[in-house]
């Protein structure tokens, strides 16, 4: 309860954080209601089914964004694809944040040679260009599922989370209240969970937002090269289709403008959350990034 009010107060105090969260919330709602929206558009039939309508219809009252090369309703497709893009962000965000937090705490709290090895390893992973490896991984791994792609992306995105959180752990572990807890014979795990973790929540949030951002972009990138997971349509795949079928030359602009606009909105919202959280935690930055 105390935690909840603290969170609410933080959100109220930062306009940027609030804006980002509101946009994010709206997008999530849109994604959650995607089955209903699809139903509203298609009536009894599935608007994303092949040849549900005529091909290449222009935007109009019946089809707000027109139809694609297979006669699928673009609006219904985009909404459904948004849900997939958000899912990949959530999957990869959770995995890489959990791994990042564990590594950061072990390295930052234990210190010494464990920290040395873990930090060097994290540093090395950070400089390896991840996109080539990701392309390679999905090119070799045929018929991957959405979850597997999420896992693959997290392999490369946890070092970011680990790095930012570790530096905070380092500064927190020498604070008097941690010493006090140690003197009173609290176990390491107790200190970590009850003393350190709550104070690091905003940083964990930053780590999550960055990883989710990276994962969504990663999947879009894979789709554009034509290597996405099978059986699902995400926003990147719609863009890829638009390029592949010549929608650009045919003037079917909604097919790439709308997914790009939605993704840009998503990136902007996540970035606002990121910067908002950083400002909350680092008062010196407050007003620096803002107006």
């Amino acid at each position: 309860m105390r935690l909840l009010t603290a969170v609410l107060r933080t959100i109220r105090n930062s306009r940027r954080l609030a804006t980002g969260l509101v946009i994010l919330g709206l997008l999530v709602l849109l994604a959650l209601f995607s089955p209903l929206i699809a139903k509203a558009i298609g009536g009894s039939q599935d608007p994303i089914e092949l040849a549900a309508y005529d091909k290449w219809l222009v935007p109009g009252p019946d089809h707000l964004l027109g139809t694609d090369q297979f006669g699928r309703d673009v609006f219904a497709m985009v909404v459904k694809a948004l849900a997939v893009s958000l899912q990949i962000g959530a999957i990869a965000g959770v995995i890489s944040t959990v791994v990042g937090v564990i590594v950061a705490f072990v390295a930052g709290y234990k210190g010494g040679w464990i920290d040395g090895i873990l930090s060097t390893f994290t540093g090395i992973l950070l400089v390896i260009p991840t996109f080539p490896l990701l392309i390679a991984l999905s090119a070799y791994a045929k018929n991957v599922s959405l979850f597997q792609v999420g896992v693959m992306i997290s392999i490369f995105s946890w070092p970011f989370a680990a790095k930012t959180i570790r530096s905070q752990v380092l500064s927190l572990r020498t604070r008097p209240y941690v010493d006090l807890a140690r003197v009173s014979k609290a176990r390491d795990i107790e200190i970590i969970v009850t003393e350190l973790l709550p104070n690091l929540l905003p940083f964990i949030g930053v780590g999550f937002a960055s990883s989710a951002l990276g994962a969504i972009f990663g999947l879009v990138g894979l789709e554009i090269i034509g290597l996405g997971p099978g059986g699902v349509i995400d926003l990147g795949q719609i863009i890829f289709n638009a390029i592949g079928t010549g929608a650009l030359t045919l003037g079917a602009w909604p097919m790439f403008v709308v997914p790009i606009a939605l993704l840009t909105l998503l990136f902007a919202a996540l970035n606002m959350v990121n910067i908002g959280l950083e400002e909350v935690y680092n008062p010196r930055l407050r007003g620096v990034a803002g107006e």
Partner: protein
Amino acid sequence: MTAEAPPVVAVDKSQDSASRTGVRAWLSRHPLAAYAIRRLGLYVVELWGALTIAFFFFRLMPGDPIQTLIQSLQQNYIYNAQASAEIIARYKHEFGLDGNLLTQYLVYMQKLVLHGDLGPSLINYPTPAQTVILRSLPWTIGLLGISAVLAWILGMVIGAIAGWRRGKLGSAIATNLSIALSHVPYFFVALILVYIFAYSMGVLPARSAYDSNINPGITPEFIGSVLKYGLLPGLSIVIIGTFSWILSTRMLMIPILGEDYLVYAEAKGLKGRRILTRYALRNCYLPQITAFGISLGFIFNGNVLVEQLFNYPGLGTTLVTAIQQLDFNTILGVTDIAIFSVLTAVLLLDLLLPLLDPRVKYWK
């Protein structure tokens, strides 16, 4: 797999032979040298670690490149007979695929370190992978280098002004636009630009790196053509890059603005622009140079897609083609080059910054 050995020890010994008073004494009298040696040691460890991880990553991936090669040779009627065990063994040797994983690794590292040899490229067999990569490297360096530097300069200038004129409308617009757009992939802007300039208006080319009717060479026509074809991909990198540099410059700039020496400069009656460029911006650009070095790797990530969209004959396109055909000497080579350039850029910056900026002291 990772860096367990402390790098300092290994390097110290070779440094010592000339010194009579012992390494430690000499190093304590030369903190800058000690720092440089430690930094160099870390560089070697990081480079080795990253190259090793990349090697095993690609070797552990499923897929049989030799079979792919033989199939493509058969399809091209170079020979019809079934591949004998002898031929397969020979190719395995050529591609560094014989023996167990450890032997392969040692052979690969030995060739790479001693001869700069990445092994033959599969698609372009028997051309070595390094030749294939070197062919596409100038295009990427040209496109990426020019647009990255341009974005950095533009972002610094606009960011500094946005910080300086804080509270003004223009500054607020620039800042909020940067927050919204700094994480958007280059590729999106590229796509929009292609739609507007190549398809709707038809004024700029959307594919390839130069007009195929013009012979490559140092002629005004060819250079003009390269610039014209590079405009759209370059512009997309510049636009997004500028936004992210605006944000970070502004963040560095604003805490400086309250400093005493700026108030003093103002009290002396110096003009605003002079204070901005000579006094305030000076303290921003050095950290931004470091950030630039680190960002190189991420630019490379985004650039792969831009090159792919424009069919630009750079490293990104080479990489994607190589991956599609399981040409993993080339894949690994491209990855190695990206790792090498990022680490080397960061190393050089770390070594040069203490010389440029007396406030930077990494050593104790």
